[in-house]
């Protein structure tokens, strides 16, 4: 078990996959992170050197991920609503924000879009 940014990962997991379990890190940024510390893409968590784990943790702690990012999301939505924009209203109504059709296929928007957006 290896701790990266306070989260425990089993040793047999891929590093790339493990990094993507953080909110705010996807395929691209995890690949870039790996390249930055010279970790090959098929590396397992157990194969990481101590220094690389520390480097990763340091880099992650500099990034805006997890709760910080969530809070920023919510703040942005709140700002849209408070300035009275159309986008803010759509968020509040639980409808698609970016001009999609609303006749069909808005399940995702109904599920997620609200003032306290579910993330």
């Amino acid at each position, binding site marked *: 078990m290896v701790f990266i940014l306070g989260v425990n990962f089993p040793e*047999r997991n891929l590093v790339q996959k493990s990094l993507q379990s953080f909110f705010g890190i996807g395929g691209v940024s995890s*690949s*870039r992170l*790996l*390249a*930055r*510390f*010279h*970790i*090959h*893409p*098929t*590396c397992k968590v157990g*194969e990481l050197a101590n220094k690389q784990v520390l480097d990763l943790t340091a880099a992650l702690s500099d990034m805006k991920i997890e709760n910080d990012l969530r809070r920023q999301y919510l703040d942005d939505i709140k700002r849209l609503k408070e300035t009275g924009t159309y986008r803010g209203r759509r968020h509040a109504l639980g409808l698609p924000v970016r001009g999609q059709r609303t006749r069909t296929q808005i399940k995702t928007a109904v599920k997620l879009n609200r003032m306290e957006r579910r993330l």
Partner: protein
Amino acid sequence: MVSSFCWSCLTRLRSTPRAVLPPAVTAPRTALFHTSTARYAMPTKKSKSMEGPAKYRQAKSAKMKKKKPVDKVRPPPVGERKALRKRIVLSNPNALEVEGMQDISAETMVDARLRGSVLGLPVPMLTQLRAVEAFKPTQGWSIFRRPGTVVRRETLELGRLIDGISGDGQDKGKAVKKIVTGVRGSGKTVHLLQAMSMAFTKQWVVVTVPEPQDLVTAHTAYAPLSDETPHLYVQNHATAALLSRTVNANAQVLKDLKVSQEHPALKSAVKAGMTLEELARLGIQDPAIAWAVFQALWAELSATSAAPGFEKSFKPRPPMLVTVDGLSHWMKNSEYRTAEFEPIHSHDLVLVQHFLSLLKPGVGKSALPNGGLLLYSTSASNNPTIYSFEVALKQVTARNTGLSPSAAEFPQPDQYRGPDKRVLDVFDSPKPTNPKEGMLELQTLGGLTRDESRGFMEYFARSGLLREQINDEWVGEKWSLAGGGVIGELEKLGRRLRTIN
């Protein structure tokens, strides 16, 4: 048809009310402009258990059927499936023992009378050959009682070459560099295997890269070499694996040789009087210093004389055989990325760079000062097509025929196809100044001759795989079917005919 005119009064009848008329044909389900034929039948609906009338005395409820719990089988342990895939079986107890089959030895490898016959690989050598991964799982070793290879023209030439380099004649200590190409199934890898087996009989040191692709697909760890050279990358685990292959295969030779120089990079680990085997094992035990150990080992093996203070235990170093099987994977960007997320060119990996630099003539002394053979082969399967590499090989041929690079006939890359200059530079080796060093050559393997094919097919027959009368006509036919005696195809023919009777 009844006309809508009344013929007696010539007045128009009232048209039939619409409701009486039969309804018009239902609209086709496809657009009218469409030319493909409509499939009129409705797509069959999936039968749902809840639909349809209830059957007689059958309970009908909304209860979902419970899924059967799937027995979770534990996946096989890590590496087991790969081991099974890479398993190499070298013997088949059901095949007949071929009587009178000779083994590769110092005498047989230069005997021209044996051309066209199959020489077995000596059993004690098999562990060494396995250690350098000379056998590939796709080769048909598992159908014969024991592994053997056919002696063809190129094999005899190779035998004479290796004999000459390790002998006392004029070829002693010569360094020969060859790139082996050929069509698929023409026996390039087996040619390397034969070279290895001959080198082992002559007590050479054999260094191999059996799967060059593994070094560039970003499956092993990598790190920048040092702060001074930020663009060079070292692969410690791959280097350690290379050291381990070399040590396992050449343990006998390396045990006899002692360290003959100072190695400042490994100052604490290396002690005077250490054997080269122990030196190499340092790198296997600690992959972090594997690259330094490899450099030290290479320096030791290519030493022609001892540094001052080490003379008393110095023994002359044996010649070396270096093989790489599947060169073109090294001619493009690797899958590794720099810290800035730029792709790393394969030539920036130090291990790759080391092996490719041997193609160039050495500065001051020969690239292989103690003599030896450099056999780099291309591969025809699982092979990236690299334009610059193709041009580079053409240039190598042109240079061997004596064309100067400034001549008009000298093959030049088409600039619009984006040639890779680094690739062209690797093979751009001028004529070596050292007389002991050969020029880079291109050897193209073709098919066997008819006589060699006959010997090969007879080996199949004597192993009990073929029940045909082997005569010249039959062999000639198979020779043509195999595209002019391409040995891989001949082997398939020999194998396939086993089921026919």
